[in-house]
């Protein structure tokens, strides 16, 4: 297992590097506005602190005096935190990076969590499980459908099924996923009235019926994502498996009597697994954005919809938090794919 460990360590290092670059990029892009966020947070905290201290407030007769005192306190804190340095000074850079890495994104401007919290971390962590639920399920569905259909098409290269897979892949990749989402609502919610139009269940999360309601509301987005997503996968799997079916070792396996089904689903598919996993990990990055937008279309209460709201309200702290967290999720899924790669490919696992 040394090979796998080494491989994984390399992947983890790469991931950490990407994460670091992500943080630095975020800071660089947002530089000045990030400062504003921080200062605002300090201002709110300090003000709240002072105003809660009745004894202290009592000492001031004139509200203007109190205001001056608050201002000076804020100034002091800002200076002590080094916020008077520009954002790109090394000390600042490090401090901000640490904050981001520990998911400390400060307070939101407008958006509140279900519990009324304005802590960006809380708000994001509330939505996170729903995104994971929707996309985890969708990805699984896509993987199973894509691999089965793709391998079947490769087995009968040139058949009608094969051509249909190609055509479907081209078509489904030409449509924006989120637009198909709009059409799905139009057809299935408005015209046929089979599924609810809004994916947010109308009851509170504390209600015992909530999980069922959530699943029912999840059906339409799930089916849309899976059906549009699997075409591309099937095509990738088909090409890789068809390529492997041309290899010498397939002829040899056939010669020594391995049945055709075992050749396709055993020898060919297993050999294709590592490249399938890699290519699909990359394809994930393409569909990731579309899937986030799709959440907003279906009003699914996950990260994507949060993004939509935050952009609409220009709630910068939430946007920054979402950027970091969604990058993290994306990297984690690529990492899982990498681990799977290692498990599938004996050349990595042993060696």
């Amino acid at each position, binding site marked *: 297992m040394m090979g796998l460990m080494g491989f994984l360590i390399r992947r983890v290092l*790469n*991931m950490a*590097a*990407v994460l670091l*670059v*992500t943080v630095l*990029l*975020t800071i660089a*892009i*947002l*530089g000045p*506005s990030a400062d504003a966020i921080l200062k605002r947070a300090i201002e709110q905290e300090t003000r709240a602190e002072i105003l809660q201290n009745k004894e202290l407030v009592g000492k001031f007769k004139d509200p203007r005096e109190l205001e001056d005192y608050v201002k000076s306190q804020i100034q002091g804190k800002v200076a002590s935190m080094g916020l008077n340095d520009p954002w790109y000074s090394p000390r600042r850079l490090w401090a901000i990076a640490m904050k981001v890495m520990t998911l400390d994104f400060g307070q939101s401007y407008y958006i509140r969590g279900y519990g009324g919290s304005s802590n960006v971390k809380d708000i994001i962590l509330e939505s996170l499980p729903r995104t994971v639920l929707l996309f985890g399920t969708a990805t699984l569905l896509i993987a199973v459908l894509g691999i089965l259909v793709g391998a079947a098409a490769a087995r009968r*290269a*040139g058949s009608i099924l094969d051509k249909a897979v190609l055509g479907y892949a*081209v*078509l489904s*990749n*030409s*449509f*924006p996923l*989120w*637009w198909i989402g*709009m*059409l799905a*609502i*139009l057809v299935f*919610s*408005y*015209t046929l009235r089979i599924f609810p*139009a*809004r994916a947010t269940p109308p009851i509170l999360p504390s209600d015992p019926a909530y999980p069922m309601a959530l699943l029912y509301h999840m059906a339409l987005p799930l089916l849309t994502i899976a059906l549009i997503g699997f075409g591309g996968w099937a095509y990738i799997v088909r*090409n890789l498996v*068809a390529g492997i079916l041309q290899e010498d070792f397939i002829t040899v396996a056939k010669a020594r009597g391995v049945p055709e089904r075992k050749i396709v689903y055993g020898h060919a598919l297993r050999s294709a697994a590592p490249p399938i996993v890699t290519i699909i990990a*990359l394809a994930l*990055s*393409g569909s*990731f*954005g*579309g899937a*986030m*937008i799709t959440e*907003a*279309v279906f009003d699914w209460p996950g990260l994507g919809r949060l*993004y*939509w709201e935050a*952009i*609409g309200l*220009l709630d*910068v702290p939430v*946007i*920054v938090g*979402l*950027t970091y967290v*969604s*990058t993290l999720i*994306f*990297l984690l899924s*690529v990492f899982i794919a990498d681990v799977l790669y290692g498990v599938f490919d004996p050349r990595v696992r042993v060696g």
Partner: protein
Amino acid sequence: MSAWSPRSLWAEYKRCKVGLAGLALFAMLLALSVIAIASVPLDSYRQWNNPSHWTEYPRAAPPAWANYVTGLKLPEHMVLRNPTVRQSAAGWVRVVTHTYYFSFLYEAFPDDFLFKFSLIYGGSPPLVELSAERPDGLRMLLARIAAPPRPEGSEARAYNSAIFSTDVSLKVNLANCLADRVGVIVSPDGISPERMIFAKEGPSMAEGGTGVLKGDYAFQARFFLFGEGDDVLSSRLVIGGKVFGPFGTDDLRRDLSVGILWGTPIALSIGVSVAILSVSIGIAYGVISGYCGGRLDELMMRLNDVAYAIPALPFLILLALSLGRSLLYMMAYLVLFGWVGVAKVARSVALQIKAAPYIEAVELLGAPSRRIIFRHIAPQLIPYAMANIALSVPAAILAEAGLSFIGLGDPTMPTWGQILHDAQIHGAAIRGLWWWALSPGVMLALSSLAFVMMGYALDRALNPKMRGA
């Protein structure tokens, strides 16, 4: 990756039906762009986000051809701008007549109507009289109004006003008409002018209860002018319908054909320029990395790996928010994320070419590496680049659409993505306003399909090995 020539490439390309279909689709989109630029005034496009520009259009009207699909004969929205003009003078009064002839053959009544006019006068205020003549010969006086008086001797100035179908004076006139002609007395409140004018004669025509009278109508406006320099500048008649134009209108009364037609040249130019730029950068990066090899290659590829692993959308959002959202910026952001994938493949192709014997020969002859890269390696990558550009265009178009859809589009230029954003905001899908959600998406899909198909054919023409499959 052997030698290639445009002619042989075209010969291979021609054999792929999908490629020809893609080319046809592309030609169609180009033609549509030309039509858009030539026929839709740039002004109405610029006014996209200005609500006052769209007041004469119906709200959320489906496209006119929907009548054929649904079998209903809903009235089409009409904006009539070219009246028949006649002048006559009687002593010191000049009468200018604007008459609008149109046929009304629908099964339902119009929603409303509106007569707009623009006058110029100095001294005594002109009078305006609006009447309608129906297919059955009945002539109805609709309104008689005077322009506001001006102080004696003041300069001649323009005056714009309008007569609405909801004006009370109009209802009073129609109530009188009903009493005279049919002998039915109805209070003015009980009259709905847009119905009564277009209804068959009968006791319940005030509410349109007698059904639509189909045929040729004439709306006539007579302007009585009393001053020397007084004149009628323009007028127009809007018969508010339930369906409109080839693409319908949205909730904000905007004519969707303007946004959709103009969306074509914009999407094409975004897609093509982003694709060309990112593929060129990617190829240059890959070739330099692959050709130079060693430490530089290692470093460049590490960088590429990191760039590859960064998900585009969150960063596009950040960039759009903090740096700006104009179309040019947007294209720059897309290029920023577009070159990465190309570089990786370009490097491996460059490595293959580099190993070719003739490159070694050129190297032995002592050619400088810049020369080798640009003279010998890069030209061989041109067909590969073309296939890649074709396949990058849809990615760029869809990425811009995605950004616009979440509300980060260039606010000065409507794109298909922005139209869909508005549709989403106004709940077009949930409310069944299908034309609003459908047409921009179809255009997006057609544009990306055209390039996907061309890219597929190019790819096949370049990799004959794939052809058997």
